[in-house]
């Protein structure tokens, strides 16, 4: 028995997720078109108009869009300005990177030892791998964190578990102490900085500032060229982004969405409604951290290398800037912001943008891009708080609350001019 059949007259029929969020269909259609377009133009599967490195860039961009979605949910919807979500992204990258590096080194070591007269023992192979991986930081033994590095399923579990558990513990400590607003942002920033500084140390067990490299080589798939692998990862990233969009669209619609937006706007009031605000924040924070970890695990095999600088606080600040420029509090806004700004960023900093000769001074975009980004961030914050996504409102002429803010008791004298109270019995 469905509500649409039995609902009394005047009640809205129960609406599906897609009916509540028309943006889902648009998003999926555009994403699919984009993916097929890229596939058709890629080297391995199409005309070759798009180079393999460009496919990788686009695939990485999709991963950045996914982490931006997570950021939008935690910040734009739930009001928690986390400046640490790129740390979860990096941890996901490290988790998968450990397996990639181990398994590939294992193959190389096994090959080189196979030429020896005696067949190598397992211990010899393991020592060989350790020397190969950790020689660069002066070590030749596996640190404890590499205990499961030989197992792909274990490391895939780590992609979810490590960011998830860190977020759970950190969030539980922070939220139960009712740390909010800018203090929480500083705390997340401190977490990111501490993590990045720790990973920079050679004895952290993750090769210090060398990070993990060679991640683009997928063990067992050596016969496939990078052109094929890149398009596979591109599709995997697109699939993850689509699923992430559906997951978050489901979460931010309906009553859950109501409650988390209410927490953003007035968390004390939500408490008096009987909702345990801290649990809701913890769920959102942890879930978005896990999605960030998955995005990172797809990103770094395409990037080929991960090092502790990727977890530096500035990365998480960029993430917030993307979401702000794209438009907080709407999922497609985060995607637009992340895609546009990160692609522009690689265009400007990669030397793609032509220098501007002003006669007395030549503007080199590699130096001036950050200034341009900073200025646009300030301008968007001041003059277009809805971000680029707000342009969609202009097209769709969506209804938005015109009167926000407190109409306190002193304003109510105006009620007389507004006419008699609606529906009241006098």
């Amino acid at each position, binding site marked *: 028995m469905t*509500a649409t059949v*039995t*609902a*009394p007259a*005047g*009640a*809205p029929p*129960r609406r599906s997720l897609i009916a509540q969020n028309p943006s889902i269909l648009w998003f999926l259609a555009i994403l699919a078109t984009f993916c097929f377009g890229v596939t058709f133009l890629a080297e391995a599967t199409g005309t070759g108009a798009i180079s393999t490195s460009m496919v990788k860039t686009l695939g990485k961009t999709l991963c950045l869009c996914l982490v931006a979605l997570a950021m939008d949910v935690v910040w734009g919807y739930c009001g928690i300005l986390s400046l640490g979500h790129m740390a979860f992204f990096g941890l996901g990258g490290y988790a998968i990177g450990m397996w990639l590096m181990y398994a590939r080194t294992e193959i190389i070591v096994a090959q080189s030892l196979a030429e020896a007269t005696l067949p190598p023992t397992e211990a010899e192979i393991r020592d060989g791998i350790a020397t190969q991986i950790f020689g660069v930081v002066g070590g030749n033994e596996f640190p404890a964190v590499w205990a499961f590095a030989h197992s792909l399923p274990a490391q895939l579990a780590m992609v979810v578990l490590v960011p998830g558990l860190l977020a759970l513990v950190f969030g539980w400590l922070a939220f139960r102490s009712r740390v909010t607003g800018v203090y929480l942002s500083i705390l997340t920033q401190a977490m990111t900085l501490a993590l990045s500084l720790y990973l920079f140390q050679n004895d952290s067990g993750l090769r210090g500032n060398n990070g993990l490299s060679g991640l683009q080589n997928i063990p067992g798939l050596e016969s496939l060229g990078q052109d094929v692998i890149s398009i596979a990862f591109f599709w995997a990233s697109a699939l993850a982004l689509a699923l992430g969009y559906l997951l978050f669209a489901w*979460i931010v619609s*309906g*009553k*859950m969405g*109501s*409650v988390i*937006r*209410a927490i953003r*706007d*007035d968390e*004390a*009031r939500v*408490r*008096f*409604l*009987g*909702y*345990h*605000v801290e*649990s*809701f924040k913890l*769920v959102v924070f942890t879930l978005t951290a896990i999605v960030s970890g998955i995005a990172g695990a797809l990103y770094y095999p395409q990037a080929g290398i991960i090092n502790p600088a990727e977890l530096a606080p500035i990365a998480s600040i960029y993430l917030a800037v993307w979401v702000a420029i794209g438009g907080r509090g709407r999922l497609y806004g985060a995607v637009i912001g992340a895609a546009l700004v990160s692609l522009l960023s690689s265009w400007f900093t990669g030397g793609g943008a032509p220098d501007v000769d002003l006669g007395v001074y030549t503007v080199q975009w590699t130096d001036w891009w950050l200034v341009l980004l900073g200025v646009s961030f300030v301008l968007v914050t001041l003059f277009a708080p809805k971000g680029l996504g707000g342009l969609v409102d202009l097209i769709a002429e969506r*209804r*938005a*609350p*015109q*009167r*926000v*803010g*407190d*109409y*306190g*008791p*002193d*304003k*109510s004298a*105006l*009620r*007389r001019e*507004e006419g*008699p*109270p*609606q*529906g*009241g*019995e*006098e």
Partner: protein
Amino acid sequence: MSALLEVSGVSVTFDGFRAINNLSIAIGEPELRAIIGPNGAGKTTFMDIVTGKTRPDTGRVTWGERSLSLLGLSESAIAREGIGRKFQKPTVFEAQTVRDNLRMALKNRRAPLDVLVWRERTDDTARIEEIAAEIGLSAHLPRIAGELSHGQKQWLEIGMLLAQEPRLLLVDEPAAGMTPAERAHTTDLLKRAARTRAVVVVEHDMEFVRRLGCKVTVLHEGAVLAEGSIDHVAANRDVIDVYLGR
């Protein structure tokens, strides 16, 4: 009649200022009670204590048949026990529709997973419509709450309280800033609500209290000064000195 809420011997001090001084109040069920008193008498602090926002230094606050102590429970746990609170300023979620506001307040399970998988059933919809009719906002359900007038927001907040189906309703100055017609509507709402549950109204305005026609507790300097019918307390010498006769 055993009391639903029993506050006994409660004191609370803020930076040396004694906001509540050995206060004892018992509220029955059902009951309509007005609490009046001059500024700084401790009316709002009393509500803060009952709803878990402020912890008292001494005293007991017990609730219900099992005499559960409310001290030490979180705000949300107290709300789930069945105590609803309306603030002085209307605090509704302005960015969301009237329907969303009421839906959030509906008495349902409140854990994150329950909320995530919750789907509106026919009786939920009916309940929302019923409350909207009660507060006179039936025609405004799809509107964004931020667009409502001040009086409508006050009613929406009262409606959200009713949707919670609390056993005790704490209402802080519900008539502040309302037109006479809106006041009359608000009085009716509160009187109707008090037929089945306990309603405590904190109010400044003697005329409004008179119209409620209920037992009145006068607070002064954090303690009970007088208690009884409005005519009884209005005739009380102490009350006239500290409050009415200023």
